[in-house]
């Protein structure tokens, strides 16, 4: 290759292996979901940095500063929309990425550890999403915040400690907002970034992403060809994101002191299932035990499923007893969320 390439392209090229199995590089194998999460993270980071310039993390002016961003600042609405939609894409893509891994046995053949890292990343993504929501400081998000606060406060032994750690105390105050803000813009993204880099490093170390063929007899494509594919994919994803952001503006209510009789209170969609559970169960069991069981179950999947023979095949019949329960667990959560939406 004698072509002149810019440093940036070289950098991204460097992240890819020289050659990669053709079956793994196929778009219909991965659907680019992991890359989509990275892309969305970069967008949230860039727009997040921009938002920091105009957001004021104090209970008096948080909502007002957002109103300002949304209605007064030049293109503030657009930056905010991008930030919001990229964050939503991040959650959805991460979940789908996880589903893809389970359905194709991606955690097999020594990739169990990276699977666990992946679940940690998912938790971070959800936390980043959730800590971003109350920063609106409107009535609806305040309710979500109160719920979360009391939920965590109800954890035996550790509750108070965790509340202090995440919310700066058991009551909503100036501290709560500052803590949320700190975690949202610095604490969580920092650790997320570390884990993410490790996740990527681990993929290379584990011998690339999962694949069908074993051994050395395989068709391959070059890393450069893969990068080109990825660029096209990112262009499409970016266009989609821009269109959504240009057209749909996420809700922004009024601060609690102005909006005294908001009738319907919504959690962010990502925790609707939790809201549903909390309608019928005790906070501790509904809010802590059940999610913990689900997460432990997901983490333990590679421990139960050790069928190293089949990898890289979607919906393989040999592994149906492993992926079907997992899909069911995801479906149940989705159904709960839908049920919660329907109740309103």
């Amino acid at each position, binding site marked *: 290759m004698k072509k002149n390439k810019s440093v940036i392209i070289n950098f991204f090229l460097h992240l890819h292996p020289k050659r990669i199995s053709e079956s793994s590089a196929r778009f219909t194998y991965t659907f680019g979901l992991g890359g989509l999460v990275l892309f969305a993270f970069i967008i949230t980071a860039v727009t997040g940095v921009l938002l920091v310039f105009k957001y004021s993390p104090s209970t008096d002016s948080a909502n007002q500063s957002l109103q300002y961003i949304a209605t007064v600042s030049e293109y503030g609405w657009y930056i905010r929309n991008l930030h919001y939609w990229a964050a939503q894409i991040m959650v959805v893509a991460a979940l789908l990425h996880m589903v893809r891994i389970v359905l194709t046995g991606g955690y097999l053949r020594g990739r169990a550890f990276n699977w666990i890292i992946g679940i940690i990343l998912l938790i971070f993504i959800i936390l980043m999403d959730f800590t971003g929501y109350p920063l609106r400081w409107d009535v609806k998000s305040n309710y979500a915040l109160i719920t979360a606060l009391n939920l965590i406060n109800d954890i035996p032994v550790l509750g108070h400690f965790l509340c202090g750690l995440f919310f700066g105390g058991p009551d909503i105050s100036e501290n709560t907002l500052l803590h949320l803000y700190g975690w949202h813009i610095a604490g969580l993204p920092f650790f997320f970034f570390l884990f993410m880099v490790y996740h990527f490093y681990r993929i290379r170390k584990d011998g690339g992403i999962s694949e069908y063929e074993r051994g050395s007899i395989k068709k391959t494509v070059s890393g450069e060809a893969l990068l080109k594919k990825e660029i096209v994919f990112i262009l499409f994803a970016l266009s989609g994101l*821009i269109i959504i952001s240009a057209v749909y503006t996420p809700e922004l209510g009024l*601060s609690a002191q102005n909006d005294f009789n908001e009738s319907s209170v919504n959690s962010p969609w990502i925790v609707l299932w939790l809201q549903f559970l909390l309608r019928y169960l005790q906070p501790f069991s509904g809010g802590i035990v059940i999610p913990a069981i689900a997460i432990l179950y997901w983490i333990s999947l590679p421990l139960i499923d050790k069928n190293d023979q089949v990898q890289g095949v979607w919906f393989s019949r040999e592994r149906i007893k492993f992926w079907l329960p997992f899909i069911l667990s995801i479906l149940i959560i989705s159904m709960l969320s839908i049920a919660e939406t329907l109740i309103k």
Partner: protein
Amino acid sequence: MPSAEKQTKKIPWGFLTGTLIFLLSTVLLFVEGQQKEWIRYQHQYNSQNNTHDNGPRVITITPTLTGKPEMCLTCHQGIEEVSPSHPVETFGCIACHGGNGETLDKDLAHKFMRGGSNPSKLSAADKSCGTGPDGVPCHNGFKDDWKNMVDRVRRSLQATDAGAVAAVQYTYNIPRPPDTKYGVKHVTDNDVRTFGFPDKLISIHEKIKSDELKGAAHPIEKKFEANCINSGCHLYSEAPHEKYFHRSEGCASCHIPRSKDGFYKGRDVTISKNEAGHMEFHRITTAIPYSTCNSCHNRGVYSLRQMEFIKRTDLKSDASDSDSAESFRKKVYYHPMTLYAKCELTLDCVDCHTHNEIMGNGDIFPDKKAAVETRCLDCHGTIDSEPAFEIIKSPDQPDAFITGQNPYIAPEEGDAVAVTKKGTLRPAVKKVNGKWQIVTKVNGNTYYIPTVKGSPCKQNADEQEALYCHTCHDTGKNSVGRNIKK
């Protein structure tokens, strides 16, 4: 070379489509971005006032009363200051209107506005006109009853329609419990000062509803509810949107007059100028012109027989602004069958009719007779005596203060001013150098008042109903009326 090398020789369709879509979506974004509402309004305002160099800018004020910044004027840039006694730097918009000044999002900003676009609706007036941001009494909530304008108006005939309800019930002999009076809404008075006046009115709607449940609703009463109560003959509703009928609701009915055709004529670009049913200007006034009163009064016949309002058909279509004020009044406003004295064509209604009559004095008036106190002799006296008068002790005494809402007079200590038989002062009617004079509220003209004493009039001092005076003092052919301008 392996397959990868071949790929690079192909035309990069994917890349091309990707970049083009990227560009197109960016273009879409810019199209969307142009639609900010407040910028549109500012452009509109700037083009109407030739202030293009201002460019779109956010206008924030922090009224001293609330201390919270408001961006309302960004869109409502041209709105008139509501009155000199409510300066915008002090009151801002939120203190009266409610809503939210910290956003430029139209829906959010207008969420929880009091009374929609009219904070003086009687359902909202408690918070808007009545009290300030911290519950400080403004026009309600005082210990002194006379200061509680909102409560007074709510108990007044204009809001309760009690007289009309009673008349209907009486005429058709509709059964009702003894000693129970009805009005448009429930209203109570804990401090009845006039013997025999009711201490509460029951909502006529609820009476009819409970009658209906018993299967005993009177058809006439239901017709009355549908045709009269529900269609705007009181302060809880607007008048029909027709020429000369235009009137707002609540306090604004009188204090924010509408134009004859109901169009807004101010400079706020957000308010439609070709849609009837808006205030003429965003301006509160106590100098209420006769035309405002006449949006309800003299508009036709409130027929007891047909139980409906029959609009006048004799309104002169040839009336125009070039008519003299008097002939315009006669053509458009005044009933052709009624006799009018000169003063009724020259002065405005509020020059003679007192606040106690119009807005009530805090008691619940059962009917019109109970409310009216203005009589010809208040200003003109009788053949035996001059008008009754009182010496003002201090310009701050309650009565002097209220009726002093005439911008052209300043009551002073020692002034001899006329007083009604119920004791309401008329600071605008004053004896100066032995001559009685009146200063009108709307345009500040001063007129000398001819007194009966010393004139050729032979009217018995005991018979002073308006009817008797009008018999001679009609502005028709045989009028003996005079109009002496200072």
